[in-house]
Structures are given as structure tokens and as C-alpha cells.
């Protein structure tokens, strides 16, 4: 059992935002397959259709996505969270975003008026919204500070994790600003890039949005380095996310300083079974190294 902000998830693996995160049924199934906690797809006030397909496309070493933050809006998501909470005790993290800094506050308000998630994850780092809303808030220290502040104000006693990317002014400095403004945790990282794939026969970008964030195995070293850097800058816990598809990757995250581990694209590579597989792998690893708890090795790579 892991301790994280007063929660006691059965596993330190968390379903990352945007993966199988639209409905209670889907989130519940991921818990059944061994996740310790789940994160919803990021939602905001409106109902968003997102970009046309192809919006999620595997390439040789990862996945490119530009779903365009499609979501059914806070009202519908609140219903699904409620349904989840009725069926399942596992912690649920609600991922929210806003088109403006103020909208972050409003969506949190509307959410917690209806239902209490165990944590609110603030998505300031989705690289796909660049063209639509300008650069992500997470590229600016000031914007990140303000979003964190407003999120904390509206979230009340529900803990807040800010989800950062590897871009912008440096993830260590960004994390520090979040901590200074009351963030309870950091989720690192969102997708990388963005990137582009061009079909050489039709000579066009494959994604309808042309560009999309890179996830999966390709980004693991960047995610590990990001977690390592955040760990050196803050003392709040980290949800280490990015490119984890197996036990060794997960352990790297822990050694870099993560408390929980986000699992996203691995569901494509390894199936939903990936949660149980890594849970087992971590237990074996601890046994092999004569450790009784994962706490003993957290952040060890810094020594």
C-alpha cells in the first residue's frame, strides 16, 4: 500500500489523463486490472468535439495525439465521477483545464458543487492547444503561478496536482512556482513535442491537426529526467508519467523521485494488463533487492 497525500491506493500505478478516462465504467475496469488510482480525461466547461480523425496515431516508437481536448464538459463528467465513486473505492483524480485562467476556477467550482474527486489535476501543459489558445499556460511561470493559485482557492480542501510538460522555462522552476502557490503535488510530464508525421504518398500530415504530442516509449528518458529535476526543486510528491511500459521504467521513475507512476500509452503497447504486470514486477524487484517498501528507494538516484 502506498501513501500519497493521505490517500492509500492499492498500487502506485495511476491511469494517466486522456486514456480510457471518459466514463465510470471505463475507469472502473482499469482499477479492476490493477491500477491504484485513475485520472479522468481533462475536461472544461464546454462540450468539445476535439479535432477530426486521425487524432491518435502510432508511429515507430510512440504515439502522436491531437485529440484537441475533446470532452463532454464538466456536467457530464461530474455524473461519471459520481457513478465511479458509487461503484469503487479507489482514488479518482479529476483532470481539468480552462481556456482562460478564470475558467480553471469555474470548472473546479462546478465540479465540486456536484462531486468530490480525491484530487484535482490541473492540466496547464497540453501541447495541442497551442494554436487555439496561444501557448500553453505551462510555458509561462506567471500563468502557471496564477492558475495554481486560483485552482487551490476553488478546490478548497481537495488536493491539487499541477501537470507540467518538459517545455517552457524549465520544469524544475515551474514546479517550484506551483509549490510556492500551494500545489499539493506535481504530475510530470504531459506529452512531448509536439511532433508531426507526414504520409509520403499523399504528402500530407497524417494528424488532422497536423501536429500532436508525443507519448510512449520514445519519451521515457525525458520523463525520467523531468521527474528527477522536479524532485530536486520541490518537496511535494510527484506523479511520474511518460513512456512507462514496464517494470524497469516504473522503477526508474521511483528512483528519480516519483511517488506515484502514471501509465498512459502503455495500455496500447501492453494492454490493460500492464497494470497487473508492473505491480507484480515491482514486488519482485523489491524482493530481489531485499527491500520491504518502495519508500526505501524513492529518489535514490539522487544520492
Amino acid at each position, binding site marked *: 500500500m502506498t501513501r500519497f497525500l493521505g490517500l492509500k491506493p492499492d498500487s502506485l500505478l495511476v491511469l494517466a489523463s486522456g486514456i480510457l478516462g471518459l466514463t465510470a*465504467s471505463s475507469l472502473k475496469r482499469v482499477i479492476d486490472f490493477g491500477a491504484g488510482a485513475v485520472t479522468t480525461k481533462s475536461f472544461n466547461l464546454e462540450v468539445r468535439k476535439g479535432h*477530426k*480523425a486521425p487524432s491518435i496515431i502510432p508511429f*515507430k516508437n510512440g504515439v502522436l495525439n491531437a485529440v484537441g481536448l475533446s470532452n*463532454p464538459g464538466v456536467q457530464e463528467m461530474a455524473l461519471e465521477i459520481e457513478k465511479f465513486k458509487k461503484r469503487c473505492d479507489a482514488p479518482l483524480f479529476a483532470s481539468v483545464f480552462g481556456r482562460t485562467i478564470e475558467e480553471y476556477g469555474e470548472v473546479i467550482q462546478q465540479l465540486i458543487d456536484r462531486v468530490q474527486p480525491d484530487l484535482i489535476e490541473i492540466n496547464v501543459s497540453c501541447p495541442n492547444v497551442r494554436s487555439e489558445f496561444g501557448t500553453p499556460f505551462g510555458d509561462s511561470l506567471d500563468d502557471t503561478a496564477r492558475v495554481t493559485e486560483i485552482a487551490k482557492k476553488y478546490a478548497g480542501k481537495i488536493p491539487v496536482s499541477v501537470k507540467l510538460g518538459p517545455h517552457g522555462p524549465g520544469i524544475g522552476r515551474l514546479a517550484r512556482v506551483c509549490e510556492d502557490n500551494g500545489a499539493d503535488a506535481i504530475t510530470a510530464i504531459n506529452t512531448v513535442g509536439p511532433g508531426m508525421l507526414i*504520409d509520403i504518398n499523399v504528402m500530407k500530415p497524417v494528424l488532422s491537426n497536423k501536429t500532436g504530442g508525443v507519448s510512449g516509449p520514445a519519451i521515457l528518458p525525458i520523463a525520467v529526467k523531468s521527474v528527477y529535476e522536479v524532485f530536486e526543486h520541490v518537496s511535494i510528491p510527484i506523479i511520474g508519467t511518460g513512456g512507462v511500459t514496464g517494470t524497469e521504467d516504473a522503477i526508474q521513475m521511483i528512483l528519480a523521485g516519483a511517488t506515484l507512476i502514471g501509465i498512459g500509452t502503455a495500455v496500447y503497447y501492453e494492454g*490493460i494488463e500492464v497494470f497487473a504486470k508492473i505491480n507484480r514486477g515491482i514486488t519482485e524487484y523489491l524482493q530481489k533487492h531485499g527491500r520491504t517498501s518502495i519508500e526505501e528507494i524513492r529518489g535514490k538516484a539522487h544520492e
Partner: protein
Amino acid sequence: MSDLMQTFPIRKIIEHGPGVKSFYFDQTFEVQAGQFINLWIPGVDEKPFSVSHIQDGQIEISVKAYGPFTHRLMQSQPGQLLGIRGPFGHGFTLKDRGLLIGGGIGIAPLRLLARQLHERGLHFVSLLGAVSRHEIIFADEFERLGTCYFTTDDGSKGKKGFVTEDVAAIIETEQIKQVYAAGPEIMFVKLKAILDTLHVPYEFCMERYMKCGIGICGQCVLDDSGIRVCVEGPVLNQDDLQDVTELGMMHRNASGKRSI
């Protein structure tokens, strides 16, 4: 074949009936009946379609004009390059003494199923329905492979009425051991009720709004089972459908919001 996007020229286009065309591509992968591919019109959109036939090294996709994407597809010409990813999901299991029940364009995946059952020497009977005679596509092919029952809303071919009306009787007469169905969801609702009572095993080829096709976006997930139509489906059996509460009800559109 692979999950990665690849583009292929349309080798041939054949019109089958009002608003239904088949598109042919070089076969670069094996496919089970019921599996689907994602078809990309570059610069337009990408949508899921069943493989309806395989012959002479070509795969065939049979499409009914519906909304913007399928109408655009109808305008494409042989030689034009389309993107194909797949095949995705799980198809039908091949069993003896099957009853193939198809409604409308849902007949497409059953066509490949009929072919594959026939090739393995498995006996089957077909029950195909549509609004009118013109909309029952591939009728002659099914007839060539075995006994066929038809129903049309206007009685222009076979019996006037819906496919679901005669199912119990056919199962009885033809000693059916397995039902396969593809078509509008309302058909599944009625069939499920009938077949659960008769305790005949069944496989339905489901459709849900899809985005990724690779099991991560969550768009196609069924309430309350959490089953993904793109991975565990599109063909689901009586056990898979046990916990599905949304059959015939609203399901999710592109935003993930529920609609009809």
C-alpha cells in the same frame, strides 16, 4: 498490416445499390470476418469500416452513404490514395449451424463471415432484412452459399416485416446452434431478448463512435462493462454483453457526450 498509417490506391469501385459502393484495395493483411479497418481520406477524416470481402488478393470495403465522410468517399475515384490502419479488434468465431442475421449495411461483415464459414465447410443459414428489395445488398452471394430468408419493411423481397419476427422459428427449423448478427442497434436489443430466452449463443458486431482504434481513447467503451468495442469487440458474445447497460440507448459522440 499495422497500426501505423499507410496509404494505398483504390484499385476499383463498384456500385451495389442505392448509395452503397464497394472499394477495393490490395490485400496486405489477413483479416477475420468482423474485424474492421480505419479508412482515412487525407485532409478530411478517418472512420471505421468492416472488411466485407477478400478475393484475388484484394480486400473490399462496402460503404453506405450516410453523412459527410461517407458522401465524400462516394466521390473518390480509382487510383486515389486512401489511408488504411488495421485490422483492429476481434472478429466472429467460426462455428457450425450458424444463423447470420443482417440488417442494412450491417450485411457487410456477414458477407465475409459467410465466405469464411463456407470455406471451412461449416453449415449456415442467412436472414437478411432491409427497408426494401434494393437495399438488400449481396443477396445473390448469400443465396449461392446457402439457404436465405429475407424480410423487407415494404414486402418487396421476402416477408414483409422485420428480421427479428421470424428468428425463433428459423432457429427451430434449421436447428441453429449459433447466431451471428450485424445491423442497427435496435435489432440487437430485440435479438438479445429472444436469444437469451432461447439460450442460443450469439455474436453481435457492434458499432460505437471510434477515435483511436487502438484501445486508449476510451471513446468506444460500453457501459457498464468497460469493454472497448475497438479492442475486445467489435464482435461481442452473450457473455460480453451481459453487463452492457447501454444497448440501444444513447451512446457517446465525438466529445464523449451521450447522444442517440
